[in-house]
């Protein structure tokens, strides 16, 4: 090191130290551990109460600002729901106008049922056991295929990301199969499995597997190495790293993949049912079309939409529940 450089370094060090606390007075200044613990506890407490304190006006009774915040938040939530409901009502109204007037504006609405016909169709369908049997059948298929894909996708994603050897063996295979749309596997599924049922579950599995596997693989690779280092220097081995770092750490990424996987699972289960099912919402919707029961087609579509929305919302909800440590959860609570 040159003399100049040494001087500069020394000055920098000196300046930093002087900013921090003067060297001559430090020993007297070093507060007792108890004092600092108390001060930090207060700071953290103030941080936790920060937004509340910021929102409070001088002279407000205690809790007034919290109440105001809750009221503002619930007002915003009601407004959002009203906007959502209005959006649906406008779409339904537009549908009604177009179908009642038998509109033919390039698109032909004259053969589509009105809201009244859809309502009557819904009432007559949901009172039959067949409707619920179809619904149950589709749910069993999707939950089986999706459940298997969730387990296999997470396991495969962790394996290829954590083990170089497994990555070398499996990645080319996965990358070769991944671009094939799951629905294109229907002929293979028909040939491969002895019963249609198993083939449909296989299609659903194949649809969900790849988004889950890829999200998991990315999530494992994106984990900060610091967490693994911490566990290893506490005496943890590979098993401990997997259990205490990898599996909990990848949950946010995995649930992203599960959400996507659930969406494509529905697309594929309905398509597969339309092609080769004997029961199920997809099968019934297609059958209704072939017998020119258009209100029943719309009832089937609405059923698929509601089921898809409910299952996706369930995945989202579980994802939020198992990752309460994410900043997002704090903001929303």
């Amino acid at each position, binding site marked *: 090191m040159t003399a100049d450089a040494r001087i500069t370094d020394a000055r920098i060090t000196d300046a930093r130290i002087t900013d921090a606390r003067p060297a001559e007075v430090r020993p007297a200044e070093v507060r007792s*551990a108890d004092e600092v613990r108390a001060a*930090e506890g207060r700071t953290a407490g103030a941080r936790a109460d920060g937004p509340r304190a910021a929102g409070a006006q001088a002279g407000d009774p205690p809790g007034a600002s919290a109440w105001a915040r809750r009221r503002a938040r619930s007002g915003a939530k009601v407004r959002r729901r009203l906007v959502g409901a209005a959006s649906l009502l406008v779409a339904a109204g537009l549908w009604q106008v177009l179908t009642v007037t038998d509109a033919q504006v390039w698109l032909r609405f004259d053969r589509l049922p009105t809201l009244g016909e859809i309502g009557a169709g819904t009432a007559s369908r949901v009172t039959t056991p067949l409707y619920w049997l179809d619904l149950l059948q589709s749910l069993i298929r999707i939950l089986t295929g999706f459940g298997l894909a969730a387990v296999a996708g997470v396991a495969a994603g962790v394996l290829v990301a954590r083990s170089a050897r497994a990555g070398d063996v499996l990645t080319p295979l996965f990358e070769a199969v991944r671009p094939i749309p799951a629905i294109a596997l229907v002929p293979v599924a028909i040939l491969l499995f002895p019963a249609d049922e198993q083939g449909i579950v296989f299609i659903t599995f194949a649809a969900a597997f790849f988004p889950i596997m890829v999200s998991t693989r990315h999530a494992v690779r994106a984990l900060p190495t610091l967490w693994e280092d911490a566990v290893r220097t506490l005496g943890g081995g590979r098993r401990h790293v997997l259990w205490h770092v990898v599996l909990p750490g990848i949950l946010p990424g995995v649930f992203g993949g599960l959400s996507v996987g659930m969406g494509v699972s529905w697309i594929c289960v309905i398509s597969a049912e339309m092609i080769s099912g004997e029961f199920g919402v997809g099968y019934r919707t297609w059958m209704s079309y072939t017998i020119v029961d258009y209100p029943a087609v719309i009832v089937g579509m609405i059923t698929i939409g509601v089921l898809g929305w409910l299952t996706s919302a369930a995945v989202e909800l579980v994802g939020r529940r198992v990752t309460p440590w994410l900043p997002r959860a704090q903001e929303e609570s």
Partner: protein
Amino acid sequence: MTLGITLESLSLGYARGPVLREVDLAVRPGEVLVIVGASGSGKSTLLRALAGLLPPHGGRVLADDAEVTGTSRERAMVFQDDGLLPWRTVRRNVELPLRIRGLSRRERRAVAQDWLARVGLEGHEDRLPRELSGGMRQRVQLARALAGTPRAVLMDEPFGALDAQTRAGMQALLLDVLRDTRATIVFVTHDVDEALLLADRVVVLGRGGVRSVVEVPSPRDPAAGRAGLRGQILEEL
């Protein structure tokens, strides 16, 4: 029980090139050895090698007489950046080394509670790391490292990101805690005054190796002779 660590002709580096060459150094059992050096001098690299996180390019590290070939619970590490697992509460972070050792739930809880009390975090057991200040998080790291009863604690600029007041408090807390534990401490910092406050010996790193080793007179505490040592260390830097 304390741990002596010996570095024999230790060379360290990364793919981009060597950082330290042929370093010989002995960390005495039970001492507080503070490593200072300018940025890029290899302080953290050396500490990672002592922890077993970084294999050497040449030479070896001995923990007592056994060659270090990987990590061990005997050599716990406290990181500058937040090494806490964000999904575990304060208590469960401190319980982690005990869980790894297979202690029962009751034993884990008792030991963790004891250490949390020692670092002044009673009442914060069920908080998540993100709900704590920087100083509190470092205290949880310290409690977690010590709860596993390591024979050596390796501390990589643990107070570097803290404001001056909090850092002073953490230094006091560390001195407090060190009175209770006989673990060997290797502490990395680039604050010379922090080094002189905490150290039995100060190692100055630079130019790819050890530039000097400075004995700090005991007791560590205040003034006498520190101004001279400070000047000497700054000169080496």
